[in-house]
């Protein structure tokens, strides 16, 4: 090749092209989305007086998200529900509807994920899993889900001697399993484990948006 200007321009424009085609145009198309109500009024504006969705996350949940990021839960869990008819996300109970761009607009860091070694968690807070179930599971997944390959996060818990009465937030682990602490000891969640569970419980797709109604 002798025509160097063409080479340089080509190198520049091919990437400029995809950058503007994929990123800039999405930013223009929906980078300005704002929270809205489940249904719109006749002018197409949010209905006054109704709740705006998505909701802001609580401070606790935001702190828990930092633990989720730090531990890399994202590498085994997605947070996106695909539409019915594309995969079995709906049938598996991973969410009452598909997730759409507006669901993510209040998140500083979007954790869609690309791997489902474990189940999708976009709506894990909507499942009948209690706080104490989550603590047992995070302390050692074998307690709730024998055969799981999810790593134990026991280092987010403290095993300590019971002083007087057991702590109110101690993790209930049946004494006849091998995961139970020594007699006289208890497993207590650290602050990090508590906020992580707050975060998990806050993950819910329990609202409709004008562009995304619950799947029938």
């Amino acid at each position, binding site marked *: 090749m*002798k025509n160097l200007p063409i080479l340089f321009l080509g190198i520049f424009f*091919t990437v400029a092209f995809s*950058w503007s085609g*994929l990123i800039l145009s999405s930013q223009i198309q929906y980078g300005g989305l704002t929270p809205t109500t489940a249904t719109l009024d006749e002018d197409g504006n949010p209905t006054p007086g109704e709740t705006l969705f998505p909701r802001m996350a609580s401070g606790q949940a935001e702190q828990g998200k930092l633990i989720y*990021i730090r531990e*890399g839960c994202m590498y085994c869990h997605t947070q*996106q529900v695909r539409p019915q008819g594309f995969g079995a996300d709906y049938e598996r109970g991973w969410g009452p509807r598909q997730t759409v761009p*507006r669901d993510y607009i209040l998140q500083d860091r979007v954790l869609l994920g690309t791997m489902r070694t474990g189940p999708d968690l976009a709506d894990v807070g909507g499942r009948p899993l209690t706080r104490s179930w989550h603590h047992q599971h995070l302390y050692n997944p074998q307690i709730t889900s024998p055969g799981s390959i999810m*790593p*134990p996060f026991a280092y987010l818990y403290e095993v300590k001697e019971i002083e007087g009465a057991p702590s109110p937030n101690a993790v209930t682990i049946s004494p006849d399993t091998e995961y139970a602490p020594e007699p006289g000891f208890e497993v207590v969640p650290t602050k990090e484990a508590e906020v992580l569970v707050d975060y998990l419980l806050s993950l819910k797709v329990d609202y409709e948006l004008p562009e995304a109604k619950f799947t029938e």
Partner: protein
Amino acid sequence: MSTASDIVEPAQPQVAREGVYGSRSAEERVALSVIDNSMKVAGVFFVCCGAFWLLAGSFFGFVASMKLHNPDFMAALPELTFGRVRSAHLNSMAYGWANNAVFAIGLWIMARLSRAPVRHGGLLIIAGVMWNLAVLVGIRGILFGDMTSVEWLEIPTYVTPILGLSYALIGVWGILAFHYRKSEHVYVSQWYILGAVFWFPWIYTVAQMLIFFAPARGTVQAITNWWFAHNVLGLWYTPVALAAAYYLIPKILGKPIHSYYLSVLGFWSLALFYNWAGVHHLIGGPIPLWLQTAGVVGSLGMVIPVIVVAVNHHLTVRGCFRQIWNSPTLRFVVYGAMSYTLASLMGSLMAIPEVNVVTHFTHFTVAHAHHGAYAFFTMVMFGSVYFMMPRLLQKEWPSATLIRIHFWSCAIGAAIYVIGLSVGGWMQGLMMNNPEIPFMEIVEFMVPWLMSRSLAGVLLTIGHFAFAINIAWILLGRRVAEPKVSLTKKAAA
């Protein structure tokens, strides 16, 4: 399989026969040796750092792999929990091994083809030290709790500006070598390397800005993320590996590349299509449908450059099987080039929604990533290092046996890796799409397939050790002016 007669020949056939610079004129030899000499310290430095990261990355990868079928393995150490250690693996391999390999091979080929010695190699080393220290701090950050959980960009943001700066100082050498070129013709390898040198800083800066420093809203981040992550492979590693293949295959076989026009077509269609393909990682996800379609089209378009390159290489090497087999460099490079064709065609298939609905979110994708980044890119880089080092050091590789061990364990290991996880991943996807099958059943079903990956990992690691030992040996070993007779005899037998 390998018998005494089809073993790797003297480490470099033409080294043995005609000296390092082949049958060139005396002036050309002097010119090339001046260029090689100007890259010597920097090239060796990058190769050594690359080998270090390759071993570190193998260790992290092995730990991560073990944990996926044996979650209690080293479970007490927070630093080695799965999410962190797999990210340490990826970043050691990508920014540690692969980038150092690109710096060494890319700059060297550029300098050689431009007939321009690398000036001020000392500054290049300083930039290289900076880069590697930054990667080290970054990996430490990942392990000790500062990971970002953004795929391919896990290194904490307090390190990334330094990475960017040291990259700029390294990349500019490629441009300088090109700028001072003495050759009039610009060869296809030079286009690829020039492209890569410009593309990488661009995509890296955009990704850093739009994801961390001035985050875009919502899933625009995810689009940026996959535009970047796919392009690192497509517009940075792939072009350099293709440049190496385009440089080494004709050079070692001693015949020109089959078609100049196919090379042109291959280059431009890659530049055009590859960078649209990344969004196929978000098919079915919360992004507008037309974007997903763009990703599918871009991915299908990739068939063109892939077939073109495959045809061009195939027609070049046709009839030279023996020579390929005897040259350690070509063994690796041709294995890599064939993997490129296969992996890329698979990639295009995987973007078709009917296929994607099965493979997405499964280990099939992991297999595919290693097919591209390992069986293609890394194998080509191994081959290139086997070619470059004797020329930089004016020494032979001390051990053909180690090269053979390296080739076979990596060739077989990569095959087991890709086949095992592809088959397992495909089944995983089918099961996941059938809501009758409880999730735990899928988890348990995957365990044997995940074990096959650990086995593959052991094989790959053995190969990496053979590679590293040979590098240490050639560096420390005595200078051998004459080719080793014993090796030549063995091969001739």
